[in-house]
């Protein structure tokens, strides 16, 4: 779950970080009144709250010198899609005078199986850009997950990106808070970029947090407290899919794709491309799907307008062929879409599944290549 900038900053504030003073503007709010009520003095920064990266370059962040300007910029940003997506809210905050912008993030390093801190004296750019343009500036520190980030280690990172004296201590404290948030929220990413040096303090001008979806059952408050409807990351149909618990990703083609297992589903997409087709989506029913889930997924694609035809590729392990077949048959029976459907079925309870499908007049391929060629040709 990606958190909005304003949510991430609220969390940092809870942990004692001095984030810039700000107000959150929701659709329909009177911007001028809210600014005055909060006593926010220009210059201000008006920021589009979307969950896609590269917001600054796409014109989603504007510096304004007066309240009037803030109002007109807000009107403009409400209407301005960032990478195709409109903002869920606007954050208006006091501009922080500063000269230096740092980069700092904490992620999990998959190979080392430990949290790693990435820091650079060159903030404001993406980490990819920094890695390209100033690769030597990136300081890495691996953290022992049973021990946590030590104060002296945080100071070491700060020192290596060139900080000294009181700013160094301020940076080290901030980094320790970032680490606390990282573990408390079970985050995949905690990032501040740019992180400004303002006088003797460090101030996060931006903040990003991605919480591990698998851990959300322990962090219900994040969903419950959400003031803004989930958008700015997903398309209309992706939001619909997620609402039904389907990990559905929309793509540009016309062949609806269902697979079991992310690897097989991706390989199916690759194969469709290989034979000249274009997938309309990615939809992985995972391991051990029961007929209800299969039915839900098939019905969803039968409704999904971009998918002119639907391809189902299942190789059963923990997933059983009979459950898959039952789900398909029920979905088709209840649908009025009349879209062409190609099924390929192998593995656990393959024969039972094949029988169920054939009884309902649906042919099930054994060979995926044949099946893919068929669906592309339709």
């Amino acid at each position, binding site marked *: 779950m990606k958190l909005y900038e304003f949510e991430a900053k609220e969390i940092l504030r809870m942990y004692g970080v001095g984030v810039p003073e700000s107000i959150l503007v929701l659709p329909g709010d009177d911007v001028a009144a809210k600014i005055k009520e909060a006593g926010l003095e220009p210059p201000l920064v008006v920021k589009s709250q979307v969950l896609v*990266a590269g917001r600054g370059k796409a014109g989603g962040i504007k510096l304004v010198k007066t309240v009037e300007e803030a109002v007109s910029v807000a009107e403009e940003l409400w209407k301005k899609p960032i990478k195709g997506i409109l903002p869920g809210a606007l954050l208006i905050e006091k501009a922080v005078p500063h000269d230096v912008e740092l980069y700092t993030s904490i*992620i*999990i390093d*998959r*190979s080392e*199986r*430990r*949290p790693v801190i990435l820091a650079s004296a060159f903030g404001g750019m993406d*980490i*990819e850009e920094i*890695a*390209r343009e100033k690769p030597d500036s990136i300081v890495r520190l691996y953290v*022992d*997950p*049973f021990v946590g980030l030590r104060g002296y280690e945080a100071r070491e990172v700060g020192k290596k990106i060139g900080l000294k004296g009181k700013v160094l201590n301020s940076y080290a404290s901030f980094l320790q808070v970032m680490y606390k948030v990282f*573990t408390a929220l*079970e985050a*995949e990413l905690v990032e501040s970029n740019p992180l400004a040096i303002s006088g003797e303090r460090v101030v996060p001008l931006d903040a990003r947090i991605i919480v*591990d979806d*698998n*851990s959300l*059952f*322990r962090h219900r408050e994040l969903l419950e407290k959400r003031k803004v409807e989930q958008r700015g990351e997903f398309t209309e149909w992706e939001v619909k899919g997620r609402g039904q618990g389907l*990990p559905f*990703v929309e*793509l540009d083609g016309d062949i609806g794709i269902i*697979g*079991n*297992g*992310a*690897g*097989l*589903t*991706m*390989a199916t*997409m*690759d*194969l469709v*491309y*290989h034979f000249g087709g274009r*997938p309309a989506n*990615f*939809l*992985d029913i*995972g*391991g*051990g799907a029961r007929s209800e889930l299969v039915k839900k997924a098939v019905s969803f694609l039968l409704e999904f307008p971009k998918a002119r035809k639907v391809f189902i590729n*299942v*190789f*059963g*392990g*923990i*997933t059983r062929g009979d459950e898959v077949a039952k789900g398909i048959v029920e979905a088709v029976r209840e649908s009025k879409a009349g879209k062409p459907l190609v099924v390929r079925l*192998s*593995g*656990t309870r393959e024969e039972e599944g094949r029988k169920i499908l054939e009884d309902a007049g649906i042919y099930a391929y054994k060979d*995926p*290549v044949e099946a893919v060629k068929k669906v592309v040709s339709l």
Partner: protein
Amino acid sequence: MAVLVGSETKVLVQGITGREGSFHTKQMLEYGTKIVAGVTPGKGGSEVHGVPVYDSVKEALAENPGINTSIIFVPAPFAPDAVYEAIDAGIKLVVVITEGIPVHDTMRFVNYAKSKGATIIGPNCPGLITPGQSKVGIMPGHIFKPGKVAVVSRSGTLTYEISYMLTREGIGQSTVIGIGGDPIVGLSFTEALKLFEKDEETEALVLIGEIGGDMEERAAAMIKRGEFTKPVVAYIAGRTAPPEKRMGHAGAIIMMGAGTYEGKVKALKDAGVLVAETPFEVPTLVKKALEERKS
């Protein structure tokens, strides 16, 4: 004896009374796996398909001291505790089938296992099989056959797909390991390669990767350094997946510029690995590799 599991493997099933645990206990027993005990807290004293159930791993081990492997079907919120219970009881191979375990939990138990000298396979994996000897996992047993080609894969269903093709082409497998699709797994490609390098029965290896992470790149580097000397055929899924979109529950998300399809394929090719464009080329390339090795 291939790697990690074989005819000596004696298995404990944690979460044996659940739907999946019970179903796959039956499947494994039918395959010939030696399942000697199961655990479900609070259900001690019962039986599942003739396998005795205990309240705790300690009790199961006390009565069945031969247990050397555990397979875990416990739901995600409780799975880490089951892993710790197995490790603390001294079990050295723990196969975690469970999907949806928070990554911070996995990070901790994988590090803990290492400190105790235990090997974790998974989580979110199909398990592993040494065909004809022991299946500790959820893969359909009939699609494998004994042989000399190792398969190591991040994807469950793709493993089945490709192994089945190998079998149909007459190419048997030494050991097939589904290492799991989560961002952090207990056994990485490089660690699996180390095991297969030492295994005399393995003559070639199929590596099935995905976009995201840098496990394939690390395996490529290891091969390039000459630390894995047997022929390798690779297939990488996700060539056509858009960047920064997460494909399902998988670890397949391309972030921070690392882990692209192109990057992985380049690294593997540079190391002399034969890279298949589609899964269906794999058997052909394996045959080619084995023939080259002979000549």
